[in-house]
């Protein structure tokens, strides 16, 4: 077991990482708000503030004990250590809890910050047309049950862990779990009015590019905690290595999307390189500790290319994702997880694929069942009139930019 000193510094890093993951929620809020219209701004902010609350509270209620059940009840698929926090007393919750890496409380709060992320990913994809209550209900159920159960399969020591599936910080466990739900919900919701018209595709422009850029920078900032914290200690070699691969992949993601934008789209599309940055980050997340710096650059670069084509693809099949959440989190999440099997000799491509499929199956099925049930019971989409007037007025009776003159057409 580590010395008290090492325990303290390890734990400190995990706490700092927690804060960094926390601020990613501001990143998501800003990005989603920036890439949608003024008339839905209050709504998006409201959802994002609520989600972080739902995430933390449900994780305390049951999520933590579903994700790290200790013993499984159904094979290695499901286990539950009971409601609420079971704080081990004395040193068992402190230095002994994880051999001097972090305390019980640190473990809980670090993981809790991750949990809310999955729901936030969905938030962007369904923006500008989902009913507030239905969204909050969906998030509640998804974060409280689906995310932690899925998580237990690998991080909780479940069957995928046993098989040797590898996902360092959650390209699959967090990003694609959120991404699948985003895909299913966006599909069930249908596109925003005016996006896919008889005369073809029409862009619905985001209203605040500085806000979107703030979002991406803060997400990158927080990602150092997301990936760096996933080392689960302050081990100098490991954490600094993860910092380097993470940075290189993000930087390469920018280059990848930049070149694709210039050569394929023939323009310098800011929203694309913003997504490309995130693509690079999601792509490296599964293997940040095992991928070489050079390969990190490849992975990020490919992620950056992939995300642009993916965004175009989803528009082609008329799945309307205002912020590119599906392309960033699902597509690059899958790619990043596969990349571990490709670039690292220690992990098997096939097992990575099995992991991806297992998560895909479970996440999308759960998302479908939950969202479809909500759709049938209380509906998921606002009325056409509400959508046109905007959710800020329709759901919140409030404007986001009072005093500013805003032109709502074209």
């Amino acid at each position, binding site marked *: 077991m580590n010395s008290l000193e090492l325990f303290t510094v390890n734990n400190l890093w995990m706490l700092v990482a927690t804060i960094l993951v926390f601020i990613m929620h501001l990143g998501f809020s800003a990005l989603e708000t920036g890439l949608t219209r003024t008339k839905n701004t209050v709504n998006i902010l409201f959802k994002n503030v609520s989600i972080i609350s739902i995430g933390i509270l449900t994780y305390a209620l049951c999520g933590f004990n579903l994700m790290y059940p200790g013993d499984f009840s159904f094979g290695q698929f499901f286990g539950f250590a009971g409601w609420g926090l079971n704080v081990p007393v004395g040193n068992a919750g402190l230095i002994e809890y994880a051999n001097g890496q972090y305390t019980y409380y640190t473990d809980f709060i670090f993981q809790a910050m991750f949990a809310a992320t999955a729901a936030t990913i969905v938030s962007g994809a369904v923006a500008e047309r989902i009913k507030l209550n239905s969204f909050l209900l969906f998030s509640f159920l998804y974060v409280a049950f689906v995310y932690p159960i899925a998580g237990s399969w690998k991080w909780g020591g479940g069957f995928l862990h046993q098989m040797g599936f590898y996902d360092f910080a959650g390209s699959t466990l967090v990003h694609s779990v959120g991404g699948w739900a985003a895909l299913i919900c966006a599909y069930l919701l249908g596109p925003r009015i005016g996006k896919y018209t008889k005369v073809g595709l029409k862009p619905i422009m985001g209203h605040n590019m500085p806000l979107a850029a703030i979002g991406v920078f803060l997400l990158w900032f927080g990602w150092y905690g997301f990936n760096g914290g996933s080392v689960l200690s302050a081990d100098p070699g490991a954490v600094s290595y993860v910092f380097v691969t993470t940075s290189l992949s993000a930087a390469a993601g920018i280059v990848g999307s930049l070149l694709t934008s210039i050569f394929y789209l023939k323009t310098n599309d800011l929203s694309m390189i913003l997504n490309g940055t995130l693509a690079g980050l999601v792509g490296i997340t599964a293997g940040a500790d095992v991928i070489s710096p050079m390969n990190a650059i490849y992975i990020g670069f490919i992620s950056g290319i992939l995300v642009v084509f993916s965004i175009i693809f989803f528009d082609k099949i008329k799945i309307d994702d205002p912020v590119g959440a599906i392309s960033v989190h699902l597509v690059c999440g899958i790619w990043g997880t596969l990349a571990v099997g490709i670039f690292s000799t220690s992990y098997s491509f096939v097992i990575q694929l099995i992991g991806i499929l297992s998560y895909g199956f479970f996440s999308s099925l759960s998302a479908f069942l939950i969202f479809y049930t909500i759709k049938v019971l209380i509906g998921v989409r606002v009325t056409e009139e509400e959508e046109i007037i905007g959710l800020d007025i329709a759901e919140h*009776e*409030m404007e986001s930019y009072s005093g500013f003159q805003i032109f709502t057409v074209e």
Partner: protein
Amino acid sequence: MKLIIAIVQPEELPEIKEELLKRKIFKFTVSNALGQGKEIPLQEVYRGIAHEITLLKKVRLEIAVNDDYVDAAVEAICKVANKYQEKGRGKIFILPIEECIRIRTNEKGKEAIG
């Protein structure tokens, strides 16, 4: 020559544009405005205080046309707005124009308007 000023709902603009084009009216000017009319006021709440917004968002169209296009323009606008049978569909005002000048060419009158 007449100046047609129409106050319409913002969301109708794209359709109105199409209808005008169909009727060979290619030029117009748009600005945004707030209108108070018979429409039901919007309810807003901020920090526990409710208030009514009676000045609602409108779009203001200005279309200068020769006399023989007036009916077509009016009809185009009404067609779109009439779909909805609610209050607050707006108004059209027709004003006389004495002279019209195309700045680029200094053309005047009927020639200049289109």
